[in-house]
């Protein structure tokens, strides 16, 4: 087990390193630099000031030097400083991260609460009204863009009740009610959109499981249908559902970019978009690395959960 975890974590670090190169190259390729956007078209033609600024940001150095300098910082836990605000990137991210994590976890929770029971019911009552209804609802949830839902929620709320969702972030431990008021809208919007794929996967996996012999045996033994569905059905269907959950976590982390932008919430998602438009590269690099790292960690965790849910699964490298 330990060996497996160590191997996966090392693999994750290797992936992150490769990814950091990719991010670095992508950022260098973005047309226009911070020097241009700070000085404007006129100032940029004054090469003396431009050179000075380039030196301040370290842009006059060799690209490889720039990269390894940054990487060395990351290894020591230093993500550099924001070119815009001058604040340490890690501070900026840590300040914004709780909101995004809260929204993502909340949305996954909502998606499970909606998707798993409905998927199980749809599988038990296949080709009935319930089944079709659940599937259509699920398809709609997946097909409506999240930024559209968010926009419509804003429209309906403000037109009818003069309601405007709160835009500030209050930590959950300092004022739980205020906090909930902020996160509930994005959580419900994203949760509904992710429920779709979880419902589909639960329905598919449950259909497979319920047609197997051991379920017929359980029925023959006279077990209550509820018990069969949960103990025999859902337990065995949980592995594929878990896989989708891991994938959905990534989709949600991306989805927060959109909902945070539409609802003007100060989360990590909006931070990336703003930093890209402002050419604040240290912030972009740090944030992308952080989000990707979280995504990789989630995927390792789901793989570990497989082993817990199904003792037959032996993790590779685990003796």
């Amino acid at each position: 087990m330990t060996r497996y975890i160590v191997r996966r974590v090392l693999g994750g670090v290797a992936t992150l390193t490769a990814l950091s190169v990719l991010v670095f190259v992508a950022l260098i390729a973005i047309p226009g630099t911070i020097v241009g956007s700070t000085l404007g078209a006129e100032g940029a033609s004054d090469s003396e000031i431009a050179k000075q600024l380039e030196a301040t940001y370290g842009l006059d150095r060799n690209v490889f030097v720039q990269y390894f300098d940054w990487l060395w910082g990351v290894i020591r836990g230093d993500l550099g400083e924001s070119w815009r605000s001058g604040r340490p990137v890690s501070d900026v991210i840590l300040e914004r991260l709780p909101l995004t994590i809260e929204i993502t976890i909340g949305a996954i929770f909502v998606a499970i609460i909606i998707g798993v029971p409905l998927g199980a019911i749809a599988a038990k009552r296949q080709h009935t009204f319930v089944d079709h209804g659940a599937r259509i609802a699920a398809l709609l949830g997946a097909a409506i863009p999240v930024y559209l839902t968010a926009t419509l929620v804003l429209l309906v709320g403000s037109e009818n009740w003069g309601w405007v969702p709160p835009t500030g972030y209050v930590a959950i431990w300092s004022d739980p009610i205020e906090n909930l008021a902020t996160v509930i809208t994005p959580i419900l919007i994203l949760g509904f959109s992710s429920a779709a794929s979880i419902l589909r996967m639960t329905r598919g996996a449950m259909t497979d499981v319920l047609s197997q012999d051991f379920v017929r045996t359980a029925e023959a033994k006279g077990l209550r249908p509820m018990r069969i569905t949960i103990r025999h059905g859902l337990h065995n269907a949980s592995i594929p559902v878990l896989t989708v959950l891991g994938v959905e976590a990534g989709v949600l982390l991306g989805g927060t970019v959109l909902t945070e932008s539409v609802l003007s919430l100060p989360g990590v998602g909006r931070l990336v978009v703003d930093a890209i438009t402002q050419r604040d590269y240290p912030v972009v690099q740090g944030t992308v690395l952080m989000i990707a790292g979280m995504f990789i960690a989630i995927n390792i965790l789901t793989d570990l959960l497989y082993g817990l849910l199904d003792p037959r699964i032996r993790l590779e490298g685990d003796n």
Partner: protein
Amino acid sequence: MIRRTITSHPGLAIAASVLFAITIAALLAPLISPFDPLAFDRERRLTGPSADHLLGTDRYGRDQLSRLLYGARISLGVAAGSVGVALSIGATVGVIAGYFGGKIDHVLMRIIDVLFAFPPLLLAIMLAASLGPSARNAALAIAVIFLPVFARVARSTTLIESSKPYAEAVQLMGARKTRIMGRHIVPNITTVLAVQASIALAQALLLESALSFLGLGPQPPAASWGSILGDGRVLLGLAPWVTISAGATITIAVLALFMLGDGLSNLLDPRSRR
């Protein structure tokens, strides 16, 4: 045969006809649009749906229906283009990795793993920003997102197919590897790839609209469905029809593609035949 397919898979038939209609409308946009999508009309700014302007006008008095018809060309073009590129490159990589295995497989799959470690929308935003905002670059960014998906699907199905008796038989008959891959493996994995492609098209449409919504898609005056929606958002209280009609169009197209994917996988999977 066709009639039986339609009656036993009504969802598939509906989805296919909706998509057919949207595609035709996009292709014929210059012929069927009631107005020039770029023509300003000061007199008729932000007018609601009427007999003249079926879906109303935007803040410059441009006809919304015409804008959506022309927007379809960009939205569908980007989605189809990106999935096309991702499918052809991804499937090639996947088949090669799956068939040859060993070192090639290992290296290719590690590269794919790195692409998979990004949340999809985040990767698309970064790539689209670094390539510069335009419809073509949005398509390229989206293609990169789907490349690993097709590579993985192609690889795993190739692994299954190449271990089947028929593949071993042609190999024993002395067929060249390229011939086995091209003539025997590829035709047998196309159905799986087709299902994957229709789902990818739906997601590509959503990604394209998200990128355009964030301003990373086609630049004005060109507009895709997503950028029309993004435009309308500013005037939401004054002219909700702009946002709602664009949003409904995206949703219908995506829904039809999802239904097509579902329908195809039911149709092609012998186990689920009723």
